[in-house]
């Protein structure tokens, strides 16, 4: 898709959202080009697979379009709001995944070359991380993913999750510890057991 010269260059996301609500025919395209890569990346890291991540990203953007007409200016930044919505949508889906974890998600590679094996291992690791996130209480999973997968600061996370910075610290510490315990049993399977990957 070719993106022609951006008529909204320099305008905040919120301005594009309001333009969309007022019927502007181009606002959605430019707003999607701005926001979707980050939404999709966040969903991919949490879900561990592309198909589910795409569904989450589409769902998050759909919620943005629907809220546009009632958007309250200056109450929240569009990016902050999207981080929250995406995190919530991911934990909703991860909750449903509990109890049906990793039975057949990692298929044997047809091509046994080192690069394909490495790709398969990365995919297996990302899925294992996502499955472990699914086992955490939702707020812990959200805080850990925003901190360690998105690399956000604790004050930013506090704003996104609408809690205090102290609560963020507590959630991320407990979440990370629980995650490490959950992953401990899968070290060998994921190639972390010794110097030589499986």
């Amino acid at each position: 898709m070719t993106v022609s010269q951006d008529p909204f260059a320099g305008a905040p996301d919120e301005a594009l959202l309001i333009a969309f609500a007022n019927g502007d025919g181009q606002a959605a395209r430019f707003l999607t080009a701005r926001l979707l890569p980050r939404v999709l990346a966040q969903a991919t890291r949490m879900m561990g697979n592309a198909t589910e991540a795409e569904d989450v990203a589409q769902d998050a953007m759909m919620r943005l379009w629907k809220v546009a007409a009632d958007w309250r200016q200056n109450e929240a930044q569009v990016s902050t709001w999207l981080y929250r919505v995406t995190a919530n949508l991911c934990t909703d889906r991860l909750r449903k995944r509990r109890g049906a974890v990793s039975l057949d998600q990692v298929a044997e590679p047809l091509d046994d070359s080192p690069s394909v094996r490495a790709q398969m291992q990365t995919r297996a690791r990302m899925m294992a991380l996502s499955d472990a996130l699914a086992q955490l209480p939702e707020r812990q999973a959200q805080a850990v993913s925003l901190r360690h997968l998105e690399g956000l600061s604790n004050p930013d996370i506090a704003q996104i999750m609408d809690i205090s910075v102290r609560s963020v610290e507590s959630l991320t510490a407990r979440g990370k510890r629980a995650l490490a315990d959950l992953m401990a049993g899968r070290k060998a399977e994921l190639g972390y057991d010794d110097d030589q990957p499986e």
Partner: protein
Amino acid sequence: MTMTNPNDDMLDDLFAQAREADVKPSDALMARILSDADDVQGAMQPEQTVATSGLWARILDALGGWPAVSGLAAATVAGVWIGVAPPSSVQDLTASLVGDEVSVDLFSTGLAFDTGVSVDG
């Protein structure tokens, strides 16, 4: 504060790998999302038109807009004029439809006299 958990190295490595993942939205996903946006936008009430949709605007719409109203205004003026100073063709038509007496009965001779209208039909 970090705990010295032996599994932290693995976890930190996993986090780093996840952050490095290069994710680009496909054209198909963009198309799905823009289609959603079109649907939502199509169902919205455009706000800019709210200011013009007051009572007067609705009456205008009901009458068929400004062209119809200007035609109506012209007809009204013509009607008043015909009522005050009916051309002989209208008088003849009225007489043929309802009879000569009616025009005399409807207007007092004083009023007819004041307006200079002949009512002797």
